């Protein structure tokens, strides 16, 4: 097609300028692709962490427990409910909670006791696999406990140390026993890190005199399951109990995850405005350089639309070249960061957002939108930037143009 | 002949472009003395512009020796060549001689400014020179406000005010009408006589050739005629 070959030649005529322009666009695109991947990765990981480490997708409590937790508000026959859930295809685990004081030597700390069935918990949640040191609980060793990261530090406890736990049992008596640290967790969440102390269900029942029932059933769903659909199915199965999704349990986190795009888009647009200015300038210069040519073309009968599209085609060709270059380095880099990630450990010990721990290795997540969002936005903005120069070329007066100095 | 200003000995110049060689000058032997008003002429492609470029230290010969004021240009470094052009040689080109952002006065002042001549002194010299070339009251105008002929006058002023030993003019009348050409040539003749400045033209304009005291004809890179009047 004539327009395409003319556009190509025009681009090649100003090699340096075209190259600088294409390079700028390519770098911008590549970086936006990597950035989108990293942002998606961070949000995805945060969601995954929040849900899969500890909170689960859906939680079941006795009525009124969430409002004001108490050791007495329990779910009856949790084993049976878990079995029914399993038959319906949901992985579930149940837990018992209480507060107490843990002491080792001269240090003490308020702790949040968590009684779990080791195998069930390991199947449902990722927390049991997220150990910094030592190993997870074992059904046969009820005196073994696992501590949260900060708790271990507060108590200056390491593997093998003995910890005293003191609490008020459900029958009013003083609960008091000695346990051994078997494992220390990596950063999970603010609460677990600071005060989380995990023991087996049997050990809990013994210590706190809670012979039956559970305080919480936590359910994880397969990756792309519909959260609300699952929640309503589970509600039907758990008559008389309170069913909550992770969004209801941590609305701040849900809001942040939903708002993630609101963070991403402005940055992409700002970047591309900078690119758009480069294009605008470059195309203006290109048009003015050839203003006599355009004048001659129009005098010979080429209509304005064709001239407009000629200029536009130049931009589209350059953007496409930039796309190839930019994607060529951005996409492999994004994929590399998906598997290897950026190691943040030298910079920070870790931090929490909305109570959920941030991974120390920042992985990106590559999907269709990692490429589409930056790419489409680039085309849109460069085309918009070209409208003014293209219109100038299309609507100038041929006689004036030919006599242009 | 007393004072030899330019001496070319068997100067050859070959251009290579895409495996094709073009012989612009094939062994040029030329001597120009002080005070001459000489035209080098010939058809396009005869090599006259090339010859002028080599004399003006803008280009170097492929073979042969070029001496200006007794100095072999091949012995001079790039900086020394630039200094020679600044101090000893004046240039007038066919068109677009002037710097667009400078006024006529500032354009004429340009070379003196590069030389570092103090402001008062150079302003006086330029004022006098502009009068001489008939542009005294247009000093403030920018080149795009001057006609072709007026621009050339300013170019002449710039070239001569610096008191060079040699003025090289490459087709100075090509872009102007007859009347203007005549007055320009009048001017240059006068300057040649009054200030004893050597003028060397490259031209194929008969008006110039008719006025020149010596006409050197180049054909295909060699001198075919050398007539003095």
């Amino acid at each position, binding site marked *: 097609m004539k327009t395409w070959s003319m556009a190509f030649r025009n681009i090649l005529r100003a090699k340096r*300028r075209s190259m*600088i*322009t294409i390079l*700028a666009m390519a*770098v911008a695109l590549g970086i936006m692709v990597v950035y989108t991947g990293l942002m998606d990765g961070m949000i995805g990981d945060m969601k995954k962490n929040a849900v899969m480490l500890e909170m689960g997708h859906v939680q079941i409590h006795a009525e009124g427990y969430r*409002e*004001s*937790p*108490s050791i007495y508000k329990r779910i009856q026959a949790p084993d049976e409910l878990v079995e029914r859930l399993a038959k319906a295809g949901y992985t579930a685990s149940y837990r018992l909670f209480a*507060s107490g*004081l843990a002491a080792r*030597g*001269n240090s*003490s700390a*308020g*702790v949040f006791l968590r009684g779990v069935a080791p195998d069930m918990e390991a199947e449902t949640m990722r927390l049991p696999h997220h150990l910094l040191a030592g190993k997870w609980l074992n059904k046969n060793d009820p005196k073994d406990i696992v501590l949260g990261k900060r708790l271990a530090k*507060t108590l*200056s406890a390491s593997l093998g140390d003995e910890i005293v736990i*003191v609490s*008020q049992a459900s029958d009013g008596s003083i609960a008091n026993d000695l346990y051994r640290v078997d494992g220390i967790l990596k950063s999970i969440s603010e609460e677990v890190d600071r005060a989380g102390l995990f023991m087996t269900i049997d050990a809990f029942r013994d210590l706190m005199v809670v012979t039956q029932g559970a305080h919480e059933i936590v359910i994880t769903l397969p990756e792309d399951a519909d959260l609300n659909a699952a929640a309503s199915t589970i509600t039907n199965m758990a008559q008389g109990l309170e069913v909550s999704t992770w969004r209801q349990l941590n609305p*701040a986190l849900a*809001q*942040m995850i939903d*708002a993630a795009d609101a963070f991403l888009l402005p*940055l992409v647009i*700002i*970047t591309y*405005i*900078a*690119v758009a*200015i*480069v294009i605008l*300038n470059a195309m203006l210069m290109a048009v003015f350089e050839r203003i006599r040519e355009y004048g001659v073309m129009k005098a010979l009968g080429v209509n304005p639309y064709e001239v407009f599209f000629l200029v536009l085609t130049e931009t589209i060709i350059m953007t496409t070249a930039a796309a190839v270059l930019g994607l060529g380095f951005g996409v492999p880099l994004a994929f590399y960061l998906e598997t290897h990630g950026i190691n943040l450990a030298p*910079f920070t*010990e*870790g931090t*929490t*957002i909305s*109570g959920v721990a941030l991974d120390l290795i920042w992985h990106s997540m590559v999907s269709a939108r990692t490429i589409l969002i930056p790419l489409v936005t680039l085309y849109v903005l460069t085309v918009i930037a070209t409208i003014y120069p293209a219109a100038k070329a299309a609507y100038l007066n041929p006689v004036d143009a030919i006599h242009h100095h | 002949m007393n004072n030899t200003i330019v001496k070319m000995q068997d100067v050859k110049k070959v251009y290579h472009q895409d495996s094709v060689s073009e012989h612009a000058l094939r062994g040029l032997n030329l001597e120009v003395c002080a005070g001459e008003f000489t035209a080098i002429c010939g058809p396009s492609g005869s090599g006259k512009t090339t010859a002028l470029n080599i004399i*003006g230290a*803008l*280009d170097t010969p492929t073979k042969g020796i070029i001496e200006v004021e007794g100095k072999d240009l091949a012995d001079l470094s790039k*900086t020394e060549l*630039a200094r020679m*052009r*600044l101090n000893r*040689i004046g*240039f007038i080109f066919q068109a677009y*001689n002037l*710097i*667009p*952002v*400078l006024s006529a006065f*500032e354009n004429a002042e*340009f*070379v003196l400014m*590069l*030389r570092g001549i103090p402001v008062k002194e150079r302003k006086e010299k330029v004022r006098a020179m502009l009068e001489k070339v008939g542009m005294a009251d247009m000093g403030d105008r920018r080149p795009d406000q001057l006609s072709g002929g007026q621009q050339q006058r300013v170019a002449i002023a*710039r*070239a001569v005010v610096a008191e060079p030993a040699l003025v090289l003019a490459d087709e100075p009348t090509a872009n102007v009408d007859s009347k203007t050409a005549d007055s320009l040539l009048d001017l240059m003749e006068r300057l040649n006589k009054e200030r004893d400045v050597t003028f060397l033209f490259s031209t194929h304009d008969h008006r110039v050739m008719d006025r020149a005291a010596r006409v050197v004809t180049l054909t295909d890179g060699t001198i075919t005629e050398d007539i003095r009047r």
Partner: protein
Amino acid sequence: MIARMAWRNLWRNRRRTIITLVSIAFGFLLAITFTSLSDGSYGQMIDTAARMGTGHVTIEPQGYRDKPGPDLVVRDTGQLADKVRAMPGIENATIRIVGQAMAATSADSTGAGIIALDPESEQGVFFLLNHVVEGQQLASREEKKVIIGSGMARCLDLNLGKKLVLTTTDKTGEIVSGLVRVAGIFSTGVDEADKYIIIVPIDYMRKLLGYSKNEATQVAVYLNDRRDAEEKSHTLAPLAAAYDGTALPWSVMMPDVAGLILMDSIGNYFFQVFIFLLVGAGILNTVLMGVMERLREFGIMLAVGMSPGKLWRMIMTETFWLAVVGLLVSSVLSVPVYWYLHKYGIDTSAWLGNDQVYGGVLFDPLMKAEFYLDHAILIFGGVFILILAAGLYPAFLAARTRPVETIKIL
């Protein structure tokens, strides 16, 4: 005259120069906006964290970082605090005892973080005391009353006047308990505080733990300028050592906040540099085109005797003028922008809500800008160097012009 020529050359193509100035202003304003908003946000977070917790600089017992426990104390804290307050740059210093305990009612119990303080001197200083929503402040240093968070009140079903038992280990490691009443309830919206922290009168705590009259776990130091924290921690170190303590800046005491700020800053920094590079590419294009258009002119200038060095300098002077005008225009434009951001800020609560917690600190969704001279100078210098750098290649090309080739261009 070269400077004059350079200035006039800058305006030869007015439209092009104006577009270039726009892009410079764009980059500059972006940098100012991002930087000042972030600085404001971080500052607010740090101040909140400092006031919620342990001050901008904390003096705590030596060895406490590694093995926290009630057996480690700073002695003669009254005298120490007085000396600290007398030093320059210090806004205030308050004495605290911190530790862990179990809070229990007859019905239930939960773990708690104890902050024992002097109610009188901490009014208006300690963040949580400003957020008491029910009941009253503590009246004395030894009464058996406490202020708890709304989360804990809910969990333990406590109201004003109700009793609870605090159980903890004392200085010798013995388990001790005390019975107290709820005098007030605070609410911040941050779960980590509302569910967990109990404010206790300091002398009562001293009695419970078996501390002598002037022993305490920490002296929280508040600075006039939070950016001095690192430096002040070094200045205070020898003084602290005389009382068995060390001085630590907030970045060590609250690594989560520090970590978050660091990550965010790095991200911000990279982004701004990246935008600058794009703006630089645009400027390069513009200056380059300006040079390529004038090759014949340069040829003539070199022919009549201008040295390549002078020509190089002329192009660089043009770039210099571009930088000067660009920075001038940008600075003028940034004044109203900064003023607006400083006074009104940007309200992100529309998409983030009011409950975001970063690094354990409540994030104020209203982001207001703060101006730091050294950051402004950095941006200024960065833009200036960027523009000059963009001129280097075109200036080099100009100086390399060969008159013989370019004069022929018609």
